[in-house]
Every structure is written in C-alpha cells, then in structure tokens.
C-alpha cells in the first residue's frame, strides 16, 4: 500500500475522545433523521384531518378530531385494490426482467472485450440523457401499432430494458478484480459459468440495490402509466392517487392517506433486502 505509507498519523486510542465523537455522531444522525421525518409527520397528521383543515392557517400539527375513516374512504372512493394489484404486477415483472437481463448484459460491458463496446455503451448512456418527453410520441405511436396500448405489458416492456440497470451493474462488476475471471478461465470455466458462479454471488449487494431501485421507480412512476393506461382496470397506484385531484377540487387528506398506504409495500421490499448491505461478502482472496 504505497499510499498508506504517507500516513504518519498516530492512531487515536483515547477512549474518552472516541466516546465523545460517537455521541456527536449520534446526535447528528438523530437530528438529520428528524429533519427527514418532519414532512412525514405532517403527512400522517394531514391524512387524519378533514379536507379543509389540511391547509388551514396557521398550520396545526395535530388534527382537531382524528378521522380514521379517511383510510377506509380511499378504498371506497376509487378501486385502490385493483390499482395496487396492477402496480404490483408491473413492478415485480419489471424488476425480475430488469435484474436478469441487465446483470447479464453488464457482464459483457464490464469484463469482455468486443468490437464496438464503448460506442454501444455510450449509446446506452445517451438514451438515459434524452428526456422521455422528447421521444414519448414516437414511442407511443410504435407501441400502439404493436397493440400494447392500454395493457399492463406496455409498462413492463417500457421499463424492463432500461439502460439504467445495465449501467449500474457494469459499475459494480468493474470493481470486481479481473484476475478472478482470468483465474476461472484458466480453470476451464466458460464465460456463462463465470457469470453464474463468480459474478452473481459476488454482486449480491449490487443486485439488491438494483432490485430496490427498479421496484421503487416502477412503483412510483406516474407519467408512463398516465399515458399508456386508460381503462380503470389497468390503472396504477400513482395514477389512482391523482384521481383525488380533480379539476375544481382536490382531496389532499385522501392523497396523504393513500400515499402513506402506497409507501408500505416499497418499504417492506427495502427492509427485506437491506440486510445485504450489512452482511457484506466474503472478500478473502479478492486481492490481486
């Protein structure tokens, strides 16, 4: 470690100082967490208010009376359950396809040499850079001619092959030493074998990340479903939320209640997967 030699600092083993430092960090974290949670507190309180109380001056942190019925109202006013099911179907299918195909493609970009690699990769990034609003219309015309308009599959194919996943996985694969692959090649493993036996097990954290991101993005997408899905049986949760915003009136208390409900499934996915960030991966033998 050439760089570490420069480090002439004395290790600070002073336990009192360590303790003070730790306490400062904790205070900082708690303050930051509070800052993050304040809007949610307001959201929860608003979801229990009457419509006109939500924006009353001056603002009140607690509702006058608690309107728990708001949480049952949202299921009656719009077919929220259908929306949940549709969204879940799209999110799960997209996540599966996305994770599988992009981790596959990313291996080629990260560890294989082939002609046109860099150009192709820039193509991928280039499409991320073009705002969807610019190519939405050509895309829509094409999708309609394929008969995908107003079907859930429209949303699946639109989001399952995004460049984002490929880019993300490529970056993670690049941090895995190439020597590992070469050693495996010498041992007679095919490229597919390397991908399945070495890359996949080593990139658990990355895959968890991709799953979370894809799931969350698909779950919260609004513009796509708004344009592509029309019949009520096909709508998703984010489009459903906007149904509480009408031309001349909006029910913000119900929007808050429904938003909080839609937060649940995504939070569960996150909680389930985040252990992969703690356990880490066996790193012995990785050093070249």
């Amino acid at each position: 470690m050439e760089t570490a030699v420069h480090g002439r600092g004395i290790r600070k083993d002073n336990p009192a100082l360590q303790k003070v430092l730790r306490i400062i960090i904790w205070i900082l974290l708690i303050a930051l967490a509070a800052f993050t949670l304040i809007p949610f507190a307001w959201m929860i309180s608003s979801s229990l208010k009457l419509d006109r109380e939500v924006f009353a001056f001056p603002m009140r942190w607690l509702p006058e009376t608690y309107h728990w019925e708001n949480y049952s109202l949202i299921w009656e006013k719009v077919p929220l359950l259908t929306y949940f099911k549709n969204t879940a179907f799209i999110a799960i299918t997209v996540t599966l396809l996305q994770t599988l195909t992009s981790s596959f493609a990313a291996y080629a970009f990260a560890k294989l040499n082939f002609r046109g690699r860099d150009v192709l990769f820039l193509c991928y990034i280039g499409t991320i850079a073009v705002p969807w609003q610019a190519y939405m219309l050509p895309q829509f015309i094409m999708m309609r001619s394929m008969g995908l308009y107003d079907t859930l599959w429209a949303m699946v194919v639109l989001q399952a092959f995004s460049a984002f996943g490929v880019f993300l996985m490529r970056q993670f694969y690049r941090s895995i030493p190439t020597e590992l692959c070469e050693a495996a090649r010498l041992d007679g493993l095919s490229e597919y074998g390397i991908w399945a036996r070495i890359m996949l097990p080593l990139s658990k954290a990355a895959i968890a990340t991709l799953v979370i991101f894809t799931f969350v993005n698909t779950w919260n997408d609004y513009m796509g479903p708004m344009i592509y899905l029309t019949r009520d049986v096909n709508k998703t949760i984010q489009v459903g939320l906007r149904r509480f915003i009408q031309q001349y009136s909006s029910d913000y208390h119900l929007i808050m209640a429904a938003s909080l409900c839609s937060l649940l499934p995504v939070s569960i996915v996150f909680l389930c997967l985040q252990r992969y960030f703690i356990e880490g991966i066996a790193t012995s033998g990785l050093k070249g």
Partner: protein
Amino acid sequence: MKKMLSVLLAAMLLLTAIPALAEDQVLTVVTWDATTTPYLIAQKEAFEASHPGVTIEYVDVESGNEYGVKVGTMLSGGDTSDVIMLKENDQVVNWQAQGFAAPLTDYIADYDMSGFVGIEKNYEIDSVQYGIPFRSDFWVLFYNKDLFDAAGIEYPSNDMTWDQYAELAKKMTDKEKDIYGTHYHTWLSTVANWAVCGGEYTLADGTYDNLLYFYKLYQDLEDSGACMSYADLKASGLKYAAAFENGNVAMLPMGYWLVSTLIADIKAGNASLNWGITAVPHADGVAAGSSFGNMTGAMINARSEQKDLAWEYISWLGGPEGAKATASVGARPAWVSEEVAAAMAAVDGFPADDNSKAALLPVSVAMEWPVGEKVPDIKTVVNEEHSLIMAREVTPEEGIEEMNERVAELLQ
C-alpha cells in the same frame, strides 16, 4: 352543387342512421373526472333515456394539464374514440391542425346555434365549425350572507364598480375576527382578466396597460389586509372553495362552476354557510353585468366510425335538451335561455334571492382568452410576468412593461 350534394348525402345518412339507433350502439366519449362530475353523470343518464339502445362510454382521462397531453398522444397514436371533449379552447386549434377534428359543416347546415350567443365562434377555424360548446362558465361574485348580516352591511349588488367593491371589501375586513373582505385565488384570471369584460379588449392584443388598474387594486387590498397574500396562497395551495367554505371570507370572485361544488358540499354536510351570487363588479364605462368566461365543448374524432351518432350526441349535448340535463345539477350550460336560467335557479340549494337569480343572465360574456396560433405563447409570457408582479418581485408597472415587450417580440 357539390356542397348541396354532400348535404343531401349527409341527410340521407342521418335518415338511415335513425333506425340504426334502435340497435345496441356504444359511443365512446373522451373526458375527465367522469365518475365524479355530476353533470357528466346527468348527461349520460338523460341521453341514454332519450336514445334507447345507445350507451355512452366515458374514457376517463386525468384532469389537470395532463388532459391535453394524454388525449393529444392518444389521437396521434390513431385513437378511434368517437367524441373528444375540449377542456381548453386551444385544444380545438391544435387538434384541428393535426387533422383529428371532423369538420361539422354538413351537420350544422340546419342546426340552431342561436342559444350559444356567439361563443360557438371559438370553435370555428377558417369558417369551418369543429366543435359544439355545451358548458360555459362565466365569472360571478360569491358572497357569504352570514358575514354581511353579522356586520350589518348590505349585500353586494349587481351594479357595483371595482372601486366600490374594494371599499366594501375593506369595510368587511375584521382582523380581530380573522375575517377577510375578499379572496383572490392565485390564477391570472382572478386579478387581471377583468380587463377583458365588455369585449373591447383581449389578452392577446399585445398591450397590457389595461391591467395596471387591476394590479394596483389588488395590491391595495393585499396591503390593507383585506385578502390573504398571494405568496402564502401559492405556497400552501389553499383551495378557493375551502377558503370560502371556512366562513371567514366575505366575497369571492370565481367561475360559475363553484356553484355546484358549494351546493354539493353543503348538502353533504362538509360546510354550512348562507351564500349568494351577484354579477362581478365592472369598470367605469363598462356595462354592469359584463363578465368573462370560458367554455367546454366537444368535437368529433376524424377517425370515428360512427360520426352520425357522434353528431347526434354532441348536438343534443349542446342544445336545449342537453342544457337542461347540465343545468339540473347546478352546472351552467352553454345554451342560454330564460328556460335554462329557470332550470338553473330551480336547482335545490341555489340561493333563493332575486339578486342571485338575476346574476344568471349576464349582459355579455367575453372569452377569458381568444383562440389563435400565438395565444399559447402569449399565455406563457403573461403568466410568467403575472407571477412576478403578484409575488412583488417587480412593480406592476415593470411587469406590464415586460409583458408589452416580450409579447411584442412574439408577435413580430
């Protein structure tokens, strides 16, 4: 000759279409908030009752700015829905230019449009009619009778100048009781559109000096605490209906659509107040009872495969029969007549006083915005400068100077 022939042909088609009505037919109508808008429900019921065998199927698109985006995209993709409702006047211009709107020339030859008192011209492009209006909302002044009674001040009248109105608003303001004399929603129309009343001037003319008086009037009211501040309203997103229903706002200039909201909310027990409407105040030299408004209409999709049935529907919708269905739930139809006004006044929950009834028949209704090729661009500029004036980032004079300059550049 050719024209006569086509009229004949259309008439024949119409004749053949009538027996066809007896069979089960489904007419798809693209609209917004279909499940919750009372007049859409009433219209569907009335049309289906008088046209057995025809079912109206609404394609429910999100309201808000996305309506135009989504419907425009659908149409570009080759959508074949029969009738498209027009939320903004610009939409007919856009969609006609793209070839989505079926010309109505042949149909309107013997269709009576007198009841529209001229507003149907907004759907006319190069002397061809492309749409039929069915709703027309003009602006009125809502007021809270309870507050006026408590203060012992006379209700606002149908003939009031803007200066008198401002004076009244200040008189009604009671800071201790947290009562505001009036309320301005954050739109351009609530503050500046009054300049178009009377019909001599439109916001697309390119000069905006006429707006100065109204900005000064507003700022004077805001400074004296007679209305809530624009900045607060913008940030909080407080809705005008909620503001009025809270019961601490004495007057509210707003579109007629609020009537049905108020009636529904009071019926449902979400609000309790006594209210009335009068004509909006007028400027010196403009006749009392002049207002402005906007309209909602419907056009026939050029790709529709049952254009005659679609015409049957939109002509019914705009005409006296459809107007009655629209008026029956408190919305204001585009078709104006004593009969329709009576139907509007007869709605359960509409204020019973004569003043409110009189306000139902305005002397003239100017368009909030005219239609035209450059209008969308002008709208953007005027709205941008409006928000600067309202947030007090610039003085009204500076803002209007900018409007004049930037719009002049657009019109070059």
